[in-house]
């Protein structure tokens, strides 16, 4: 995409996060959408492009009463919203629409009005070759590569636990975070074992919530009430729907391809990055993200986090909302990572990084199946 040609002019989460039994899935989308529209000072009738995942764009358009001229239902898991931002930027630049609404809503905890799980049937390739082996979803498949990563890189269980500790440190600064009590490596390691070597504190939360973004052409951005956030670069890719068929258990190809593309498009170097979000469904994901995006050399991310570089006061603030481990995780967390990047660029985050000008927001979809990366800036130049 063309740098800084498209801007995020509206951003909001659902009014509440956490446990929301009073709202169904589609109303979580709508609640977030209405909040984002109010944030941008727009009316629903101003929206002419719609993108969503987890809910059908047709259902959502009808529910909101929209008449879109551009529709994107890309659904590749929790990073779908990063892909929507990328596709929306291209569509706006091509003149297919002017003002795009991207929504997420998920009743992950309360399970109200939730879309049927679209897991593969027994005749699909994953259903035939992974389905019979007792997998329990993300807790046993997302985690499966990590023992190999540990052995090949020398990363330790203590270093894994430190990821959860550091993200909790960020969450203590955030009144909207689900878990706000500080924790320790010992506590994390002694928590209930879910799927060895991962304890409960190293697995994401399961909560209800939603979020929405509104994008338009950058030259219009100054007419909106909030500080505009510009899209500087974008990337996306997919690898495999089967964890067993990932090319290499120590690195994600989708992360590398998506990250490299986003850095190329944006023209930035790693030194330019003031703030970083790496989708953390499980505590090992920041290791893969830091290495595959090029912030750390192979096998050095464990020590990098252990030495507090990503913690409050560190050189590379990472997952400053508390992340999927401590802030919230409805199932498709990518939207909340994007929301935190927008807040940091607007200067309105709960744990605001002083003078932050560039934020990199990196998402994963499925279990290392897909990836999307968005580079944002508040500098219109």
């Amino acid at each position, binding site marked *: 995409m063309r740098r800084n040609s498209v801007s995020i002019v509206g951003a909001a989460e659902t009014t509440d996060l956490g446990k929301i039994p009073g709202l169904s899935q589609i109303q979580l989308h709508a609640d977030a959408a209405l909040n984002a529209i109010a944030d941008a000072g727009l009316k629903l009738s101003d929206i002419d492009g719609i993108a969503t995942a987890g809910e059908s764009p047709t259902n959502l358009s009808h529910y909101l009463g929209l008449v879109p001229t551009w529709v994107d239902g890309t659904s590749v898991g929790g990073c779908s919203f990063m892909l929507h931002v990328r596709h929306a930027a291209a569509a706006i630049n091509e003149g297919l629409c002017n003002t795009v609404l991207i929504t997420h809503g998920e009743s992950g905890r309360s399970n109200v009005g939730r879309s049927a799980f679209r897991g593969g049937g027994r005749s699909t390739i994953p259903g035939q*070759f992974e389905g019979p082996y007792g997998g329990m979803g993300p807790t046993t498949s997302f985690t499966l590569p990590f023992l190999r990563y540990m052995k090949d890189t020398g990363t330790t269980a203590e270093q894994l636990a430190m990821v959860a500790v550091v993200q909790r440190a960020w969450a203590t600064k955030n009144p909207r975070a689900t878990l706000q009590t500080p924790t320790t490596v010992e506590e994390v390691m002694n928590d209930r074992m879910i799927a060895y070597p991962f304890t409960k504190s190293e697995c994401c939360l399961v909560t209800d919530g939603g979020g929405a973004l509104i994008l338009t052409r950058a030259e219009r951005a100054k007419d909106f009430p909030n500080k505009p956030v510009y899209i500087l670069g974008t990337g996306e890719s997919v690898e495999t729907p089967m964890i067993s068929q990932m090319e290499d258990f120590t690195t994600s190809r989708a992360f590398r391809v998506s990250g490299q593309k986003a850095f190329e498009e944006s023209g930035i170097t790693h030194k330019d990055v003031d703030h970083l979000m790496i989708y953390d469904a499980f505590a090992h994901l920041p290791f893969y993200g830091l290495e595959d995006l090029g912030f750390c050399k192979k096998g050095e991310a464990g020590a990098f986090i252990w030495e507090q570089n990503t913690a409050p006061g560190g050189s590379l603030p990472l997952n400053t909302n508390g992340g999927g481990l401590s802030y919230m995780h409805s199932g498709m967390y990518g939207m909340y990572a994007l929301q935190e990047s927008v807040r940091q660029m607007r200067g309105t985050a709960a744990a605001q990084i002083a003078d932050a000008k560039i934020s990199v927001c990196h998402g994963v979809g499925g279990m290392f199946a897909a990836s999307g990366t968005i580079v944002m800036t508040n500098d219109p130049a």
Partner: protein
Amino acid sequence: MVDKTKIPLPQPTPETAHFWAGTKNETLKLQRCDDCNNVYFPPRPFCPSCASRKVSVFDASGSATLYSYVINNRPHPAFDGPYSIAVVELEEGPRMMSNIINCPQTPEALELDMPLEVVFESMSEEISLPYFQPATSDSKSSDSRNQ
């Protein structure tokens, strides 16, 4: 395993039928590209490396090593207590998911890169699943699986 009926059994498709016919017959079938020699899995009637449709099915040795795993501690109706979900690396190169059986389900007993061999478990009239257990003989470089 305590209850086989709680395992969602594969439903073969035209492209995978040879694999499941093979496991029913206690052989592990892989495919090799006749043009570029690439050995691949899961089954498909073309080479994912060079796109050639000239591919052959052959019997794998059944030897493998333990590439990675987790030990699931949450209850599953088919299993009695914690159990391993593993990815094994076959001697021929491809990797596949399986469970490691006939072995304590502990980090001490499940050592990465340990030698394994395939065993087949009949689950229904149509389906036998390939599982892996610690290697019982030095069959590492042998071409035929000894059973």
